[in-house]
């Protein structure tokens, strides 16, 4: 079976005082067309680095371990024999940046910024490119697309700018959409609409969407499957409904417990005691054991994947193995 996206053994290190410290370690993910996978984690969990390695936009100094595999549509995009990045970026993979992060150029009109991506990846020009720009703006639900196209970013509302950023990600007709915290800067009502839009686009265009978020509320609304990252590793993954209802990892349970009832989205994620160990100080064994209330002697060894029942969920925790057998 060939997934749209296959990530295996992805390890990315950054230089630090003592040499190199892995920020992402042995990450495995897979994603099918028409599916939304949420990659959930706190700041520093490595979720953004994971996303950036899909488009080979890691900051200078970052090194990817040779055994790492990233394949999109069966084609290797990272490591030896990878396809050239320019076709990958914006073409095969569209990245939705976060509104408010400054991902829109403030001194250029929306239409120009969209148009150059359309021209670059679709091989169209002139009036045809102009029509495509308007069509894209319509597709992301912006009223008066021609007016939006001739506007500068500061003339639009936050929600409109986020829609523009989605249109920009779609402009190269991608197969895979990577959305990095697409709604964190927006208020709740706008957030819901943007998430609905991403969901709809995933279905109608048959995209695979990787949704990077720290917010389990977003996960519940949007995604089909979830992968929970902590300290550079995926600790648990599974179907969203399953994972949210009966989480298998103590960390996931902690995250859910921190969510106030009513699923308020602005909730602080980590109200668990302790802090995530920084890269370079993540010794052997389970990375969560310092903060785990159920730590066992065995946790000093690195836990392996344990499948949870029939639903395809799995978890990296010795406790789950105990429970099973």
């Amino acid at each position, binding site marked *: 079976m060939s997934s749209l996206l296959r990530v295996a053994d992805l390890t990315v290190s*950054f230089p630090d005082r003592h040499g190199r410290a892995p*920020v992402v370690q042995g990450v495995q993910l897979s994603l099918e067309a028409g599916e939304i996978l949420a990659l959930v984690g706190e*700041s*520093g969990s*490595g979720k*953004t*680095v994971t996303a950036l390695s899909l488009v080979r936009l890691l*900051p200078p100094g970052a090194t990817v371990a040779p055994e790492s595999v990233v394949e999109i549509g069966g084609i290797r995009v990272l490591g030896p024999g990878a396809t050239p990045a320019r076709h990958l970026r914006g073409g095969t993979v569209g990245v939705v940046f*976060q509104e408010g992060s400054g991902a829109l150029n403030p001194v250029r009109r929306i239409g120009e910024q969209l148009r150059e991506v359309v021209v670059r990846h679709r091989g169209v020009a002139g009036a045809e490119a102009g029509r495509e720009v308007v069509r894209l703006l319509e597709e992301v639900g912006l009223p008066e697309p021609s007016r939006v196209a001739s506007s500068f970013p500061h003339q639009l509302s936050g929600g409109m700018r986020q829609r523009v950023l989605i249109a920009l990600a779609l402009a190269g007709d991608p197969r895979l959409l990577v959305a990095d915290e697409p709604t964190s800067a927006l208020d709740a009502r706008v957030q819901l609409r943007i998430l609905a839009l991403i969901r709809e686009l995933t279905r109608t265009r048959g995209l695979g969407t990787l949704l990077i978020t720290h917010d389990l509320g977003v996960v519940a609304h949007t995604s089909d499957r979830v992968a929970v990252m902590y300290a550079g590793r995926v600790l648990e993954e599974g179907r969203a409904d399953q994972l949210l209802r009966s989480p298998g990892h103590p960390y996931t349970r902690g995250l859910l417990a921190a969510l106030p009832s009513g699923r308020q989205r602005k909730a602080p994620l980590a109200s668990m005691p302790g802090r995530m160990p920084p890269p370079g100080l993540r010794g052997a064994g389970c990375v969560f054991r310092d903060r785990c209330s159920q730590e066992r002697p065995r946790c000093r060894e690195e836990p392996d994947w344990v499948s949870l029942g029939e639903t395809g969920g799995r978890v990296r925790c010795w406790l789950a193995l105990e429970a099973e057998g």
Partner: protein
Amino acid sequence: MDSRTAVSSDRSKAPPLLAGRVARWSSLGGNRMARLGLMGVGVAAGLALLAPMLAPHDPMQTDLTRNLLAPSWDHLLGTDQLGRDVLSRLLHGARVSLGIALLSGTLSVVIGVALGALGGYLGGWVDSVVMRMVDVVLAVPRLVLLVTVIAIVQPSVTAIVLLLAFTQWPAPARLIRAEILSLKERDFVEAARALGYSRTRILLRHLVPNALSPVLVAATLGVSHTVILESGLAFLGLGVPLSWGTLLLSGQANLLTGAWWLSVFPGVAIALVAIAFNLVGDGLRDALDPRQEVRL
């Protein structure tokens, strides 16, 4: 990596004090170029201080039988049109040119910081008056103003120091005012106010020290600019004897006799000192605040 960690700066905390940041700089060893610059400044200052001991000849001793001599063992940098030793004149000139630049630089920082801090902190009409004064001084190119005024009052060390300072203070004033305007809204100032500290104490103990680093950077870079400007005035005939610019002026007068050493060496001296101060200034800026942009 995650953008939110980068912006989670704590607004309630006071930024580290200048002394702390300088210490951090020296503890990191600075960068190589900055250390080179510091060395250059040290050497220049040492040469200036020890000039009477180091100079091989009397800088004022004329000898018309030995004029316009090319560099030789006897006169390492040659002699001028009156037979005076160029090296000795350069060494003594360092006292004049560096002294004027450092004095006027210090004075301008004192005036600028005082006026800029008062304007920024008190606001209202005080601020308006200070800023209008800045506008007037900046309205005319500095050199034009200096040339005009020095021509009227006649050049002397005192006049040149004072005038350089009076035309330089707007730069530190604007920098410190801008810093204080942004600092005074910060929480640690609110906290100090809530604790009942007086306005003077808040200004002198909390605001000024925290706002000084861009001023320090600008002042260091300003020294190099002032060395050039002072020799420029002397080059236009509005300087004091022995200033490096005065030496250059006699160089230009003898340019077409082929006495290149009269023009080349003073200029090299000015340029080296300017480079040294610029290196130190750049190093300070990188150390104190990498994102700080220095204006003027």
